[in-house]
């Protein structure tokens, strides 16, 4: 079943087009990453799904329920951990969770049980009587996840869930979210940490200026980037050697260190070494560096820069 379907979504704020015909499908059970620079339209897309924004045109469905016409059914399936700390500060955090569960139709006794369970899951149960404002930054992030989990959602939406948290907590949260996904929860993740998407996501969509640029697995995307062969030569040549080979691009030289860009490091390395051999260069070391998702991402979302250095794209 399709967990999320967006069809030609457009969202305009005055003259600004935050979403520009976004179409996307995410399958049930998938761990789906949404990558894009600031202003790409990721949060706008999420807000449309959860009811905090209305699309100008186009439509979106969550588990087959239109997010506007069947908003109750759609929202009942979603747990959202947003980027911003939008938490009720009047009540201790366990009560905030109980209220949230209640809004989803969960009776008070069950809501209490679930609130306790969610706080234990994210490791802040001992802070249950504290108000949100008094939690540390990391605990606040944990709490947002607990609030998303308290209604036992089929679709978990995480908008920059690890922004500003330390490495240890980030890894902890990754493990937790991965477990939930393994148990069948569909996860939609937006993040600025490319490593996060590489580690967690089955599929990644790269967005820019309100549009989807590409959808693929992190491995596929990496495969589309340029690898690099880092060759150490015995003697520094006067100028960089030239290669007339398929899939081999520019070479740059820094003393004895030669850097050659290739489309696939594994299959091109031998030909490059042979060519160097034939032209009398002795190779003393070879290192293969695969393209990172980050490089692919930057390449895909690169904006034009005018002469003054200002971004114009």
């Amino acid at each position: 079943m399709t967990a999320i379907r967006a069809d030609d979504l457009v969202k305009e704020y005055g003259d600004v087009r935050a979403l520009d015909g976004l179409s996307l499908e995410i399958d049930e059970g998938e761990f789906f990453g949404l990558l894009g620079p600031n202003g790409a339209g990721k949060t706008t897309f999420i807000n449309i799904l959860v009811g905090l924004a209305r699309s100008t045109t186009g439509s979106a469905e969550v588990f087959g329920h239109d997010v506007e016409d069947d908003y109750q059914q759609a929202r009942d399936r979603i747990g959202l951990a947003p980027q911003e700390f939008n938490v009720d500060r009047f009540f201790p955090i366990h009560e905030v969770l109980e209220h949230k569960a209640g809004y989803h139709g969960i009776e008070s006794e069950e809501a209490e049980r679930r609130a306790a369970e969610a706080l234990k899951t994210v490791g802040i149960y001992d802070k249950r009587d504290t108000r949100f404002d008094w939690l540390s930054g990391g605990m606040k992030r944990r709490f947002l996840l607990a609030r998303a989990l308290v209604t036992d959602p089929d679709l978990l939406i995480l908008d920059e869930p690890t922004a500003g948290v330390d490495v240890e907590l980030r890894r902890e949260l990754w493990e937790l979210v991965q477990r939930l996904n393994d148990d069948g929860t569909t996860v939609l993740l937006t993040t600025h940490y490319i490593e996060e998407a590489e580690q967690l996501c089955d599929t990644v969509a790269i967005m820019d200026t309100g549009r989807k640029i590409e959808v693929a697995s992190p491995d596929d995307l990496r495969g589309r980037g340029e690898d690099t062969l880092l060759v150490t030569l015995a003697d520094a040549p006067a100028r960089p050697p030239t290669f007339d080979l398929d899939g081999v691009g520019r070479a740059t030289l820094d003393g004895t260190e030669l850097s050659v860009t290739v489309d696939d490091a594994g299959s091109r390395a031998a030909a490059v070494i042979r060519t160097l051999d034939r032209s009398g260069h002795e190779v003393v070391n070879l290192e293969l560096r695969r393209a990172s998702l980050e490089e692919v991402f930057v390449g895909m979302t690169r904006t034009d820069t005018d002469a003054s250095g200002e971004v114009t794209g």
Partner: protein
Amino acid sequence: MSAFGTGFRSLLTREILRFVRRPRNTFVPPAITNVLYFAVFGVILGDRIAAIQGYDYILFILPGLVVLGAVSNAFENASFSIFHGRWNEYIHEVLTSPLPYSSQVLAYVVASALRGLVVGGIIVGVGLLFVPFTIDGGSVPIRRPLYLVAFMLTITTLFAAFGIVGGLWAEDFDYLTVLNQFILRPLTFFGGVFYSLETLPDFWATVSLLNPMVYMVNGVRYGFLGYADVNANLSLAVLAGLTAVVVGVDILLFRRGYGIIE
């Protein structure tokens, strides 16, 4: 999910707990304000003012003070809760839930009306303390209890519903102050809280009839004293109709996302 199901009850409970747990912000201020009103206007000045329509001045002003406290607290509760939720964005907890928009509105309105009713009760309690000082063996009569209940329910609901509009409209805390201090309070003071319309020149008495507060103050006064400057039944019918319209507008505004959805 039904309109009055678990979701509605959860939001209603949350809204009630919000003001019940902060009595120093919600119940103590109107109690103190009304101690001052009753002491100055009821006891000190009231002794020098002749009875109006046969009622001691303190009894005459009591219904108006109840209305003033009840409606301003109902309004303030709804407008603050909505605006503060928008300001800190925690209203998103409600908006992203499967609660129908009508249930969301009704929970805010019912809780706010309840706060207005509680404050009204507190003011009656303060009045009960002061009335015996000015009238030997005096008490607060309730001549038309059904009218009193009907008017109090209607006007607190009406102002709670207005409060929702105010909370959605406000862009800053200043807006709420403007609504409460510059519109609501003058209308109430010129709504016959401290005087009978019969004491005004004909022209101003007629102009006063354009002020909706006149009908509320007189309706509640009718409930307490059995006396009113205007027709109680007509007032009640018009106010009940207006309340239904404003609640309907609230639901429409929520559905359209006015002030809350991008």
